């Protein structure tokens, strides 16, 4: 309801909560993918951080693009 005052229909719709379900998947995918690329734990963790940031950035970019498209329509 707080968001309803702002021009954020997507957030106000309550669907934002579903995005949290992406978080464990991003972490799991980053960790497992990085573990298949490296052997040392330190390298795995730093690789996972990099991949996780990349996936998050990728998703955030398309979130903003789709949000702007849906708002302007």
């Amino acid at each position, binding site marked *: 309801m707080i968001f309803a005052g702002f021009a954020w229909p997507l957030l106000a719709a309550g669907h934002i909560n579903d995005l949290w379900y992406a978080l*464990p*998947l991003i972490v799991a995918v980053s960790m497992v993918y990085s*573990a298949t690329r*490296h052997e*040392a734990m330190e*390298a*795995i963790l*730093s690789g996972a951080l990099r991949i996780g940031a990349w996936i998050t950035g990728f998703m955030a970019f398309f979130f903003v693009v789709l949000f702007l498209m849906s708002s302007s329509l």
Partner: protein
Amino acid sequence: MAKASANAETNSAALEQIEIDLKDPFLAAFLAWLIPGAGHWYQGRRHKAVLFFVWILGTFVFGLYLGEGRVVYASLRDNDRRLPYLCQIGVGLPALPALVQAARKTPLQFPIYEDFMAPPEVSQIPNQEDELDRLQKRMHRYWEFGTVYTMIAGLLNILAIYDAWGGPAFALAAPEKHKEDDEGDGQDDDKASKGSGG
């Protein structure tokens, strides 16, 4: 025994060479499929075994929880081909009860443990609401979340299986002295070096 070595990049960008004994790659790959991380445990790569076990199995179990134990089921019926199961079976043993439940769901037998991983009833009559419709209507988006989580867990385990078979993607060919030592089982070395393609 197959061996591979990996360049592990540390924070200081220094290269640390780690030698990996893949033991029997095919057995390791089979164990990795059966239980996520088991293949790596067999190879003595304990930290990766724990990592794969926790994250892959955790993702699968969480997906199963979201889907109330119904999103993982095997069905090749004409009106319900459960193709996501082809991905879910990637986690191995944890997804196999679905096959048992599918085999037991006959007019003469009933699934065990209620309907856990059992294929839901589907109607042969078009547009008639059946158990699958009711499940999807009740769970709503959690049906999809559960399906996606369990599918991704299975697909991630395929990466882990490949890692158990061929070593990490950044692996290099084993050092010369080891190649000489392992002339007797040179085939395994070839398999190990295939993993160096990444």
